[in-house]
């Protein structure tokens, strides 16, 4: 039964990684841009929620009502003021600028909040509650994390395939020049996409902060998990990203069950294995 338990924990952890990865997947799908500061933005969002909780006394989940619009605005501003100047054929400028942003953000958080690790108060009941599924018992927070990953993917897919904004996203992703002829402004579409990505980041951050401790230095590792989930899933498929997150999560919990020092390493090895066998990921767009 211990293995079944490990498996379930891994799947639920995968939900968190999928939340980290959804924004990355969305942005890459639309503008072929990888934001190397994505992990640090997750950590920054966790601190933002911490500040809101401390100032207002709200529960972290309620604080999302403030944090999600703020992160959306931050993403919109980042894209409009900085990244839109750099989107183009050459991938070097956006990579180097977002890498610089990652280092700046990490050290600014260090300066503002010190290196001490923090946690979001889940409240007495939610933090410890668990659900009994017969052979395995799972914590309510991990379960809700996974549920919100599914909800976020459903919502993003609905936006993508059923709204005018989604149509603009898809059109710009396919061919920005033709999209422009149809009256779409790619720069505005990009700004909406990055805003949306950071809104999702805020949702990932609240679960990250309630599940475990966080400090300013953990951003890059979150970026790497998110990236691995996107690649394993195959570019452009959000359900694939969830599957990728689950694979990383399961590999990590099994690695940790064998030897706690192997947790992160086995996640990376699972990623390299997929890259070896299926270089285009498990569910590349266009396969079905």
């Amino acid at each position, binding site marked *: 039964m211990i293995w079944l338990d490990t498996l379930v924990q891994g799947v639920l952890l995968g939900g968190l990684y999928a939340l980290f990865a959804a924004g990355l997947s969305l942005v*890459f799908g639309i503008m*072929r*841009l*990888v934001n*190397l500061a994505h992990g640090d933005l997750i950590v920054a969002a966790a601190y933002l929620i911490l500040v809101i909780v401390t100032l207002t006394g709200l529960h972290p989940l309620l604080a999302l009502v403030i944090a999600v619009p703020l992160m959306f605005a931050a993403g919109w501003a980042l894209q409009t003021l*900085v990244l839109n*100047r*750099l989107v183009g054929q050459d*991938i*070097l*400028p*956006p*990579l*180097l*600028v977002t*890498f*610089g*942003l990652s*280092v*700046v953000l990490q*050290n*600014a958080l*260090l*300066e503002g909040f010190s290196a001490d690790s923090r946690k979001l108060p889940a409240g007495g009941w939610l933090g410890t509650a668990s659900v009994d599924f017969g052979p395995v018992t799972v914590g309510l927070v991990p379960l809700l994390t996974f549920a919100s990953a599914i909800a976020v993917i459903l919502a993003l897919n609905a936006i993508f395939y059923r709204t005018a904004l989604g149509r603009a996203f898809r059109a710009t992703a396919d061919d920005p020049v033709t999209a422009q002829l149809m009256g779409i402004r790619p720069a505005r579409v990009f700004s909406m996409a990055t805003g949306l990505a950071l809104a999702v980041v805020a949702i990932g951050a609240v679960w990250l902060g309630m599940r475990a401790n966080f400090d300013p230095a953990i951003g*890059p*590792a979150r*970026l*790497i998990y998110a*990236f*691995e989930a996107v*690649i394993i899933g195959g570019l452009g498929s959000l359900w694939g990203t969830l599957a990728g997150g689950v694979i990383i999560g399961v590999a990590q919990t099994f690695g940790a069950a064998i030897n706690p*020092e192997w947790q*992160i*390493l086995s996640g*990376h*090895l699972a*990623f*390299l294995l997929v*890259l*070896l066998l299926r*270089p285009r990921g498990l569910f590349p767009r266009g396969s079905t």
Partner: protein
Amino acid sequence: MAYRSTTSTPAARLFGIVALIVLLALAALPFTGNRALMQELFSVLILLTLAQFWNLLAGYGGLVSVGQQAFVGLGGYALFGLTALLGLNAILTLPLAGLIALVIAVPMAWFAFRLNGAYFAIATWVMAEVLRLSLAQWKALGGGTGTSLPRDVVGGTWGLDAVTALTGLRAAGARDALSYWLALILAAGTIAGIYALLRSRAGLALSAVRDNEVAASAVGVDANRIKWLVYLTAAFGTGVVGALVYLQIARISPDAAFSVTDWTAYVIFIVVIGGIGTIEGPIVGVIVFAILQYTLSQFGSWYLITLGAIAILTMLFAPRGLWGAISARTGLHLFPVRRRLTRV
């Protein structure tokens, strides 16, 4: 009327003489016995060498790697393994560390080249993490907490006696002087080597791939081969640097040896600020870096915030960096690679 193709310019010849004088002056530093300055310049020369190799990768090869710390760490661990465990002399392990980094770079490149552009960058980072976590399992070298280089390895380094006799420095000073000289040779050798590469046939192909990969392929340049060449060259050089750094520090741990901040972030900022895609760029960048470090080092993380912000602003408003701006305004090239026709 006869014409000759040449890359040489009067300005470059003058600069060559100045560079030689500067090099001789730098080489003479240990005779003053100023250990603090030697240690400062050691780190500057190390960063300059790393920056040249990263610039070769990203600026010329178009391969933006965020995982060069993999080879610094491999070089460092190779030094420790070969000296502390196998008993080789430290000097001998410097080239061997480069070779080990090169051999391990082959499967790494094979993985990373499956992804292009932005995903290549993160893939290199993942592999550096895999190496860090794997070497943290190497209990003979202290596992996750690391270990120190045995005293007899440090003291038995070839050349120490000669340096002592030459400079009259005591043991610790002689070690600093030896490391400093090795770093100076490495930095000057790297710059000369990369300059020679760029002026060669392969360098012409490299510049063509940098400017336009499709067009270069159309005229028969094997872009993939060029990328392998650049990646493996950078791995070798970075590995040697790693071994030299950890010979000087004499203490290694996985977190320090595979630090993305120390071995890649600084290096990227130096190249971006100085000017990517030129040999002059990293040199200008490292000078700016050293000045900033000197003035801001007591402010802790503000230093990195400032450096990152300058790099971002450079990329936004002067994407060719400081040297690019100078060069565009004056037409100056200190390491000319452009072939011009002159009448004989």
